[in-house]
């Protein structure tokens, strides 16, 4: 992984085949064609297929087609291969895949990482890859020994015969390369798994503790310059005029150039570039969004929420149920724009030549970046090479519909005709848009005289993240962006009359998927409101939910597990409150119970979170636990602190002082309980996020009687009078 920076490695990539040499057999015909043509048989490395290369020293290189951004795919994907390949785990290396259709996501048809789908995408394919390679190695050994291959088996990087002969994979690779592709390889029954299901140590941990891990920001090329871009202060603004003289006078500044995204200050390093950028004199045409403010938008959203939107789900007659109900609860919820705030700010290194463009960056979206970079460079896509480095966090930001951080860097490289690294400062990153949308929700519930829920009407108001993107046609159903309503429209609760409708606005603030996407807001609204209904019905919030899940056994199972592990029925000390929330996202079922206290000043401390998760078959249990911990912190940070606001078109936040992150001293004790399952694996990276905000808000209500309907949670509102 850290080899990416090594120049010999880079030269190897340039001169070798697309996956680094070796005879490529191809896992399927298109792969063979795509990869095999360029491949010779170099250096004794044997490419079993696009995903596995075995060298004569026994090293097994797994080519990872999903990006490593912390979620552990550089370990879980090799585990899938290793389960069937029967290789020596200590000899596994991982490298990132180049851009090639062979590496496309099995469901999306493009190469990318997101939607908590990496393991699900590769669950069948990479096990088949491993099994196919193993069968060829076994066939090669059997052929060497002139015995039936049925008398041979593979174990720990060797093929062993029934008479005790043994050859290592390294010894077999040349011959294995010439063996016919086996057909219909049989995959193990889960009961035989030796690797899958184990908490295997992450392969990328050592390099992440010794400084050797290479992120995009760490890539350096000979003769490379560093550029910072001064972008318009308002989304949609443009440069009207600028004076480069003072910036150019800064020692170390080499060039000041206008690019489509703004003015780039190019220097020998970050520091002169930043001093130079401060010295720029720019007159901006602020464009149509110069008066935009989130306060104003909030009023607009609130008034829209009182009107009917495009229907996403309609069952029975919710309006009638509300009219005829014994009691009606009606509430408004709202959540702000949120920045991804990856620890590694955006960056991209570009080496643009007349007939080639080489890019190093931490991206989640290789196919889109590849074609966008080609277009920006004026080259054909096949002339563009992307090296995916480790990502210092992604959370969706590094899968940008416009490939903004890649395209902007290519544009600077094109302007200066030198290798360049474009760095976004923290401030650039935070003010740079592509936020989780701001949302406003009107939600009403109808209860009958016995406190049973007989109707629910949820109206959602906010920007669509799909409208105007290449994904619009796939992600909009009857005018409804499915990511705007996910987590509400698919509520598991048995409610006879349901109406979910949506207003999608067009506003000049760029918005995007943010870890858990629509679920990040809908779970807060729906699960807080379920708590309101339970309270209004005079029922226990856990029992109230449970009674509505008779046809949702996996939902019910995690709800029960979380309640049991959290000792739901056991009273807490009086200064503590407990809240529960349940949410399914990305195929996984999660329930969380939070224990909180609130200080006299209104500050919320979350002491403990019990998390029950059913994500189908588990590849690496410790990774699942880590992702639940991570999702909980991510969601809690948003619930307690997160807000991007605009005034006069300008983003008011800039850095961690005004967009704070949860700190170690605020970390709750998180206990994760995983449901054993043989179902197909489902999402892990995102589903931990959605339930935590409502679980905490419900706990605050249980403790204080104050209902949180607006995030981030306001200490002022919780302050003791």
């Amino acid at each position, binding site marked *: 992984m850290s080899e990416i920076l090594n120049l010999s490695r880079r030269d190897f990539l340039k001169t070798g085949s697309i996956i680094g040499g070796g005879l490529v057999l191809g896992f399927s015909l298109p792969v063979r064609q795509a990869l095999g043509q360029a491949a010779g048989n170099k250096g004794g490395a044997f490419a079993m297929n696009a995903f596995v290369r075995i060298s004569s020293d026994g090293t097994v290189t797994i080519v990872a087609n999903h990006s490593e951004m912390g979620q552990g795919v550089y370990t879980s994907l090799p585990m899938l291969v290793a389960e069937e390949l029967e290789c020596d785990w200590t000899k596994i290396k991982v490298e990132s895949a180049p851009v090639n259709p062979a590496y496309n996501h099995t469901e999306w048809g493009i190469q990318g990482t997101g939607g908590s789908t990496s393991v699900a995408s590769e669950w069948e394919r990479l096990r088949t890859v491993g099994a196919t390679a193993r069968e060829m190695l076994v066939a090669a050994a059997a052929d060497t020994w002139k015995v039936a291959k049925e008398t041979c088996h593979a174990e720990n990087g060797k093929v062993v015969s029934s008479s005790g002969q043994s050859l290592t994979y390294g010894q077999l690779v040349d011959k294995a390369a010439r063996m016919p592709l086996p057909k219909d390889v049989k995959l193990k029954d889960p009961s035989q798994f030796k690797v899958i299901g184990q908490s295997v140590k992450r392969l990328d941990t050592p390099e992440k503790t010794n400084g050797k891990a290479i992120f995009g920001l760490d890539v350096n090329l000979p003769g490379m310059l560093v550029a910072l871009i001064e972008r318009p202060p308002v989304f949609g603004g443009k440069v009207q005029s600028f004076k480069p003289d003072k910036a150019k006078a800064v020692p170390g500044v080499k060039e000041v150039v206008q690019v489509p995204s703004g003015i780039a200050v190019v220097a020998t390093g970050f520091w002169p570039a930043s001093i130079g950028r401060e010295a720029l004199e720019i007159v901006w045409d602020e464009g149509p969004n110069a008066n935009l403010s989130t306060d104003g938008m909030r009023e607009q959203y609130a008034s829209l929420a009182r009107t009917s939107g495009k229907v996403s789900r309609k069952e029975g007659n919710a309006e009638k149920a509300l009219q005829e109900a014994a009691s009606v609860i009606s509430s408004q919820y709202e959540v702000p724009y949120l920045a991804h705030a990856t620890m590694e700010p955006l960056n991209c290194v570009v080496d643009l030549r007349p007939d080639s463009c080489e890019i190093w960056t931490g991206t989640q979206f290789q196919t889109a970046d590849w074609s966008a970079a080609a277009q920006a460079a004026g080259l054909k896509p096949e002339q563009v090479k992307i090296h995916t480095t480790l990502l210092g966090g992604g959370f969706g930001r590094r899968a940008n519909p416009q490939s903004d951080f890649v395209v902007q860097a290519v544009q600077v490289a094109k302007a200066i005709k030198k290798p360049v690294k474009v760095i976004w400062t*923290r401030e650039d990153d935070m003010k740079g848009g592509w936020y989780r949308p701001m949302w406003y929700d009107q939600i009403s519930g109808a209860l009958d005289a016995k406190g049973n829920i007989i109707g629910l009407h949820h109206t959602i108001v906010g920007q669509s993240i799909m409208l105007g993107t290449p994904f619009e046609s796939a992600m909009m159903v009857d005018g409804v962006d499915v990511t705007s309503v996910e987590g509400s429209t698919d509520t598991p609760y048995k409610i006879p009359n349901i109406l979910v409708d949506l207003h999608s606005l067009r506003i000049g603030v760029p918005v995007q998927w943010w870890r858990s996407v629509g679920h990040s807001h809908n779970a807060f609204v729906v699960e807080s409101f379920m708590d309101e209904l339970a309270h209004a019905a005079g029922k226990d919030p856990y029992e109230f939910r449970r009674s509505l899940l008779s046809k949702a056994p996996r939902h019910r199972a995690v709800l029960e597990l979380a309640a049991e592990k959290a000792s739901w029925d056991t009273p807490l000390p009086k200064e503590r409150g407990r809240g529960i929330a349940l949410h399914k996202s990305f195929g996984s079922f999660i329930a969380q119970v939070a224990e909180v206290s609130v200080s006299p000043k209104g500050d919320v401390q979350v002491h403990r979170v019990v998390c029950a998760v059913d994500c189908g078959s588990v590849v690496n249990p410790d990774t699942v636990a880590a992702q639940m911990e991570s999702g909980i912190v991510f969601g809690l940070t948003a619930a307690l602190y997160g807000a991007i606001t605009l005034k006069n078109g300008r983003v008011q936040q800039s850095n961690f002082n005004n967009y704070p992150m949860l700190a170690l001293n605020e970390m709750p004790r998180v206990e994760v309980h995983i449901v054993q399952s043989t179902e197909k694996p489902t999402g892990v990276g995102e589903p931990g996020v959605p339930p935590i905000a409502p679980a905490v808000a419900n706990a605050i209500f249980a403790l204080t009687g104050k209902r949180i309907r607006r995030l981030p949670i306001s200490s002022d509102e919780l302050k003791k009078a």
Partner: protein
Amino acid sequence: MTKKLDEQNFLELKLTVNRKEFTVNVQPDTPLLWVIRENLGLTGTKYGCGIALCGACTVHLNGEAVRSCRTPVSDAVGKQITTIEGLSDDGTHPVQRAWIEDEVPQCGYCHSGQIMTAAALLAENPKPTDADIDDAMSDNICRCGTYQRIRRAIHRATEILAEGGLKK
């Protein structure tokens, strides 16, 4: 030790980084972070916020944890600068070993700074309580939320220290 400023305000400075001597030609107000990363090519020390809020850039100056993004390089002249690459010869400092044992990193970007901060804590206080860990570590941001594991690993590192400390 230092030559005069040239016409571009660059200065030749001698730095001791990870027990090795380096000579760099930089403007003296350049943050140490960028000298380490760009002039010396030691990229383990990270840029996260640029204003000493996140701790990703933490290095040791004479053993003390400092934020290299707000430390002018001129302040580091004559001091022992230690970066993550020099914390141990082979990645076996007790904190590094504990980080591996407890599977702390996720994206990993903040962990050079986390480890350097934790190592400075343990050098001063070989058996920190949870409250000591809160005090020392709460200004180091981890967006992946590995805090529970950071705390556990620091306790584990104290055990490794007690078991015999540095392997080398």
